[in-house]
C-alpha cells in the first residue's frame, strides 16, 4: 500500500466518523439519516478495502 493510499484511507476514516456523528446526533429528518447511512456503506467498504 502506497503512502498516498494511506493518507486517502485516513481521510475516508475521518469522513466516516463525521458522517456517523451527524447521523446519530445532528440529523433530525429520517431522509437525511437514510442519506447518511447510504454514504456510510460505501465508506466502510473502502476503509476495509473491499471492492
Amino acid at each position, binding site marked *: 500500500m502506497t503512502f498516498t*493510499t494511506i493518507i*486517502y484511507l485516513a481521510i475516508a476514516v475521518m469522513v466516516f466518523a463525521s458522517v456517523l456523528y451527524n*447521523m446519530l446526533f445532528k440529523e433530525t429528518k429520517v431522509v437525511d*439519516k437514510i442519506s447518511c447511512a447510504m454514504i456510510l*456503506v460505501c465508506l466502510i467498504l473502502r476503509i476495509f*478495502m*473491499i*471492492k
Partner: protein
Amino acid sequence: MKKKGIISTCIILAIAIVCTVIAGTSFYNKRNFKEDIVTEGSAVTRTYKLSTYNKNLKGTIANVDIYVLEGKEPGGSILILGGTHANEPAGHMAAIVMLEQLTVEKGTVYVIPQINMSGLSHNDPLEGQPQFIHFTTKDGSVRTFHFGSRAANPIDQWPDPDIYTHKPSGQGLSGSETRNLNRCYPGQKYGTLSEQVAYAVTNMINTEKIDMEIDLHESSPEYAVNNACVAHERAMAIAAEGVLNLEMDDISMRLEPSPVTLHGLTHRELGDFTDTYALLLEVGNPSQGRFRGYTDEKLVITGEDPCYVIAQKLGLLYVDYSAGNFPLSLRVARHVAGCAAFIQAYNDSLDDDARAIIIDNVPDYHEMVETDDLGLYLR
C-alpha cells in the same frame, strides 16, 4: 435525542449494516475467486509466474500464471494476451480455450489469459454487469469464470490522479485511464500496479525474444474499430496477409493501422519498445456497448439484445447484427481463428522455417459457431 428518533436511527443503521455485509461478502468473494484453468491433458508443458519479469509483482494479485506450450522442435514464439480488459470476455475465454486445446509441433506459444487479474477481480460501478459467467463442459461439470472491469481494481491502485500522464511519452489522459492496462505500456518497473504489469510483459517479450504478440479484446458494436485487427506498422504485412486468409474463410476482418501518436497501447508500444510483431484483435460485444438494455450473464453469452436489433436497423453498428445476436461462442471463434491465421501469415513471411510456429488442433471456426456452446471447447 427523542425515543422515536433513537428507534428510527437504530433501524436505519441496522439496514445499513445488513447492506454492508451483503455487498461486502459479494465483493470479497468476487475478489478472491480463483478460476481453475485446466492444464491436465492439455499441451501446456510448464507454467511460471509473471513476476519472473518484474520482481515487484511478487505477492500482488497481478502475479499471474504464464502458460507455456512448447513444441517438439524449437522455432519461433508467440505471446497471446487475454483479459486485458476484463469486461471483454471473448479475449479472456479465447486465451483459455487456446491454452487448453492447442497443440504445438514447432516453436513456443505463451498464453497469459488473466493479464489484468486486478480488473477481473471487480466490476465497473453502475454498469449492472454480472460478476461471473458459467459454462457446462462435455463431461457435465460447470466451470466458472470472471466477468470483470475494464480497469484495474481501485484497491490495488488508489487514488487516481486528476490527469494520467503516460510514461515515457508524456501524453495526458483522463485520470481513470491510469488503471487501464492498455494505456500503460511499455510500463514502469516501479510504477502503479498496471504499469508494473505492462513492464513485465514488455520485459518478457524482450527477454524471451518473442516474435509475435496478439492482445485479445472486444469493443462495443457501435464502435468503429470492430471485427478488426489493429497492427503496428512493422506487423502490417503479416496482418494484411492474415486478414486475407480470414476473408477467404468467410471471416470478415477490418485492418487498422496502430495510430502513431496514441500511446500506452500494446499494438503501439510493444511494437516500438520490442522487436515483436504487435497485433490487437477486436470483436463486437453487446454486453459492453452503450445501447444495451438489461445486462446479465445471458446477454454476455448470447449477445442477444433488442436494443441492438433497433440499432442495427438504424445502421448504427459496425458488426453484422442481422441475426439479432452476437454470441460469445462466435466472438471466441473469431479470436481463435484470428490467432491461427496470423501465425500462418507470420510463418509465410519467414525466409526459412527456423523461427516458424506450427500449431495444431485449432478449434474450427465454423464448428464453434454452429455448435454455439463454448463449454464443448473447455476441458
